[in-house]
């Protein structure tokens, strides 16, 4: 597991400053409402809040009771109520209901809404409409960025993905610009900014505008270059099953805000435990980026070492024993606890994955990525649907099929869609509409000549052969964008070579050597060339919207400081742990350090769930 980087890696900037900044501002805002008050916190803000402050911090600033926002009448008896919420119309409406109910009951209270990271006009318009503007005061808590780990910063805005890409609502563009501005003003100035994607471009412009509005002071840069990328540039990567440990843990147990809850199947007791997963966990930090197949052997080696360390006790005299207990034992116990947790997690993962035929699932994914045996893949997916196996998994495979093949053949599309609706409910018509809108699951538009040919041939031969012929025709007519990209960027390594997952030779190791994540490959290529030059064909296939700008600090650029090797990568619409692992690998290889900033951590389930239309 000891990866030797080419050069010594530069030190990462200290992001705990961001937490301090946010905490201090929250305290300031709470003090704007002097006296005892009850605080209502929106459910999805609880974990982020936990990472920067604790109950005693809040109590010190006269927060009396804490409640979760639950859209029910409130029971608070306090005469001051504070709401800490995301700027959502539904939540503001609920607060209006609360305030108006109090009014009707002749109860007088002070209300304050703290929107984070910013307020929206539409929310204030609700207050105005409800006759409460002014009675309910509002403020903003500019809590843009939550450092989840030394090299991961999250905006904790999972709704960014749906709002921006599905609804086409640009409400978060300025937020992202502000977040970038914050990073830039503390850790910048950046020497260069690259990016690709429509939203990335807009966020860049918003950021630039904010830089121009404020005054920039010359300072020592701690971050060199920045790279902005839209999630819709690469949907393939987040749709693949994750097989690197951290990604796998996220796929199975769902890591929330850097913390995972292991159930009793992992802890082998009747209690579940919440564990922080970050570089502080010495066991985890060594296995997080490893392919799952290596993790077991690593853990058992670790367990043997631990046993030896414990065994040292034997034959110790009193004095030695005393030092052992005071110096080593605590560390060993801690390691023991972590080891047994991760071993438990591995076992649980194995059990779950064997049950769902993970091997075959991976084979199908790899075939799709390679463009090999597509008919077999389709029938695998069909059976998946027929058997009513996970509704999310079926959609994920359908989307992978569609993107890699540049759309499904009309007859496949109709058949699979009909079966999907039959298996999981007709309300998924809306899901299909959503997926089509994003281009994730579409029907090919066949050329006319092709259809004629096909129907003629179809009459001569039986159905299965006709299907194969049709495949052949359509692949002649239209090459998939993904295939073209894959060829140009060498995303799919040759399958005839053995791939040693213990000694990865490229980023493909995160997908068992079957595929190099497109997003990370683009970043690698641009950094290598220091521009988009030479990638014109690639960007054309990705619908363009690429950009590269040199920052204002030409002087800093020449001073080849360590900071130049620190690269900030911002994912707009979420990034996966697998991508983070791939970038860490790339960093080790090239002597970079990557800082990943993302609107939220995502994975295939979160991505698909955000697009479900059956719950409306």
């Amino acid at each position, binding site marked *: 597991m000891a990866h030797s980087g080419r050069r010594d890696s530069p030190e990462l900037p200290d992001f705990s400053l961001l937490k301090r900044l946010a905490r201090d501002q929250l305290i300031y805002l709470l003090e*704007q409402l002097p006296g005892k008050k009850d605080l209502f916190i929106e459910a999805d803000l609880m974990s982020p809040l936990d990472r920067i402050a604790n109950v005693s911090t809040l109590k010190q600033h006269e927060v009396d009771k804490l409640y979760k926002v639950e859209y029910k009448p409130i029971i608070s008896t306090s005469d001051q109520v504070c709401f800490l919420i995301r700027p959502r119309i539904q939540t503001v409406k609920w607060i209006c209901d609360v305030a108006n109910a109090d009014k009707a009951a002749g109860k007088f209270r002070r209300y304050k809404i703290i929107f984070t990271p*910013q307020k929206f006009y*539409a929310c204030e318009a609700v207050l105005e409409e409800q006759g409460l*503007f002014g009675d309910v*005061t509002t403020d903003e808590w500019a809590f843009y960025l939550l450092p989840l780990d030394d090299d991961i910063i999250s905006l904790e805005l999972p709704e960014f993905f749906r709002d921006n890409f599905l609804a086409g609502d640009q409400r*978060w563009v300025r937020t992202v610009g502000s977040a970038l501005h914050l990073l830039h003003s503390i850790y910048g100035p950046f020497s260069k900014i690259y990016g690709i994607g429509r939203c990335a471009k807009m966020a860049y*412009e918003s950021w630039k505008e*904010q830089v121009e509005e404020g005054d920039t002071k010359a300072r020592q840069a701690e971050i060199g270059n920045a790279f902005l990328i839209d999630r819709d540039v690469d949907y393939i990567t987040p749709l693949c099953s994750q097989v690197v440990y951290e990604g796998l843990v996220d796929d199975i147990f769902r890591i929330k805000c850097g913390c995972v809850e292991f159930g009793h199947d992992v802890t082998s007791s009747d209690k579940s435990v919440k564990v922080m997963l970050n570089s502080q966990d010495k066991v985890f930090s060594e296995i997080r980026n490893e392919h799952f197949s290596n993790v077991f052997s690593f853990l058992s080696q670790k367990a043997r070492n631990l046993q030896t360390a414990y065994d040292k006790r034997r034959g110790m005299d009193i004095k030695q024993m005393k030092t052992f207990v005071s110096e080593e034992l605590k560390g060993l116990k801690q390691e023991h606890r972590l080891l047994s947790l991760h071993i438990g997690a591995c076992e649980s993962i194995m059990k779950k994955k064997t049950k769902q035929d993970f091997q075959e699932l991976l084979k199908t994914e790899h075939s799709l990525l390679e463009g090999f045996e597509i008919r077999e893949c389709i029938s695998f997916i069909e059976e998946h649907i027929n058997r009513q196996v996970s509704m999310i998994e079926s959609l994920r495979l359908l989307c992978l099929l569609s993107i890699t093949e540049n759309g499904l053949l009309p007859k496949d599309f*109709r058949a699979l869609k009909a*079966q999907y609706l039959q298996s999981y409910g007709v309300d998924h018509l809306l899901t299909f509409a959503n997926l089509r809108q994003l281009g994730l699951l579409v029907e090919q538009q066949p050329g006319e000549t092709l259809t004629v040919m096909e129907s003629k041939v179809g009459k001569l031969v039986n159905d299965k052969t006709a299907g194969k012929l049709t495949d052949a025709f359509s692949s002649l007519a239209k090459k998939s964008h993904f295939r073209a990209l894959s060829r140009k960027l060498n995303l799919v390594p040759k399958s005839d070579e053995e791939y040693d997952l213990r000694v990865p030779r490229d980023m493909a190791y995160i997908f068992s050597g079957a595929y190099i994540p497109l997003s990370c490959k683009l970043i690698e290529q641009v950094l290598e060339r220091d521009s988009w030059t030479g990638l014109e064909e690639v960007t054309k296939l990705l619908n363009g919207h690429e950009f590269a700008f040199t920052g204002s600090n030409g002087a800093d650029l020449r001073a080849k400081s360590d900071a130049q090797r620190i690269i900030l990568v911002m994912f707009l619409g979420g990034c996966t742990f697998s991508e983070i692992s791939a970038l860490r690998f790339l960093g080790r290889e090239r002597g970079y350090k990557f800082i990943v900033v993302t609107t939220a951590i995502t994975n295939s389930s979160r991505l698909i769930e955000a697009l479900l239309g059956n719950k409306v």
Partner: protein
Amino acid sequence: MMKNKPDEEDYWNSSKFKAFTFDDEDDEFSRLKESKQAVNSIRSLVEEEDDEDEVEKVSWSGEPVGSISWSVRETAASNQKTQREHAFPKINASSPSVSRSHSGYSLSSLFKGESALSESSVKLYAPELRKPKSESKDYISDWSPEETIHRMQQGKVVSLERFRSLQDKLLLLDFSVRAHDGNIITAVLIHLKRTLSKEVLFRELESRQTALRHFIHYLTEIRDHRLLLELLSKRRDFLKSCLNLPFSPEESAHVQDHYTLLERQIIIEATDRLAEHAGKVEIFQKFPRRASILNMPLITTLYYCCFYHYNEPEGTYSSPLNIRHTFRISEKQYFVTVLAARAKLKAWSDLDALFTSRNWLGFTKKKSPLSFHRVVDILQKNSAPTQVLQEYVGLVDDADLRIGLAQKHKCHDIVINTYRDLKDRQLLLGYRGKVERGSAEERKINDLLDSPHIRWKN
């Protein structure tokens, strides 16, 4: 509005005490800069009109429409004058609002040199508020649509009320779209929704896709379904000519099917609930229904019918065959569902019948639209006994796959027979170690190994 009047008056009067400050000058300067930007960008608007698709040509033909006040916000903001209580203690805080909710004090001043928080985190009402009333009004009315959008982005107070002509309103909208700030786009749309008739608004939105999508999202969020529906149907009519998006005949067929299914579920549910209560039908006693079948997907319904109504004649609503035909369920899907349901009931003979087909010579043969290794998988998940599994494992075509499955499910006979057919003595010897000592399997292996009739390849 009226309610706020005295406060406002008070406020402005008191504001006059404030003398000229450098901030004012700053503001002048920035205004100059802003207007320069405005001029520049108007030029660019003129020059590169067809540059981006979201900046549509403004239609100049619309007639001005009456407007209602949107700036109640602004006057209401003066309620928050209490922020200045410490400076002007004489002002009577007529509204009970909380003190100092807005303040020029910024946390970022704690971190000198970090300008990040100062503008965006705290709304600076101060520059406007400090100006004498009349002068300030002049200033407000001077702001161009673009300047107004720019100020809104910075969270400053603006008045949208004075943009009364359609042309101005649309300029506001187009500049907001240009700024890529969804918050502002929606803010302008809220103003337009209040001050334009929906016919005019819809008409103008047709050619402004970005704004239209924001409007639809906003209506969805405020749950204004009535208006949303009107807008969507209008949009559909508009789109019909070029696209046949979510209203294709294929989709209406799905909806029709769903309707038929619901009707049927209602009938089945009513009958079965009665039967269950009466306690006369054995299957309901043995396997009580866990949930109502209403609103379940089609395949779940089929599964249910395979479970409770498998042998019914095709004429009944709940017969699996009837459901299969009514809803054109594919053979494979039908097989999978029957298989799962009957396996759950351990009705192995039903499965036997399901897979058996007779050819024209009268020989029976097992056939499946689903590969047999999948069949085995489903059976095994329903804990089928080894004899049953063995039968289906034996039907797997691919020898490697068959051996793999046979080993996994301990179907020794199949493994042994396959090795025998492969004439692989070594593998057979190896397998002997895996079967139980003294078992029938071991004897069989020994017999084979001793047999003089087999010509082993190794």
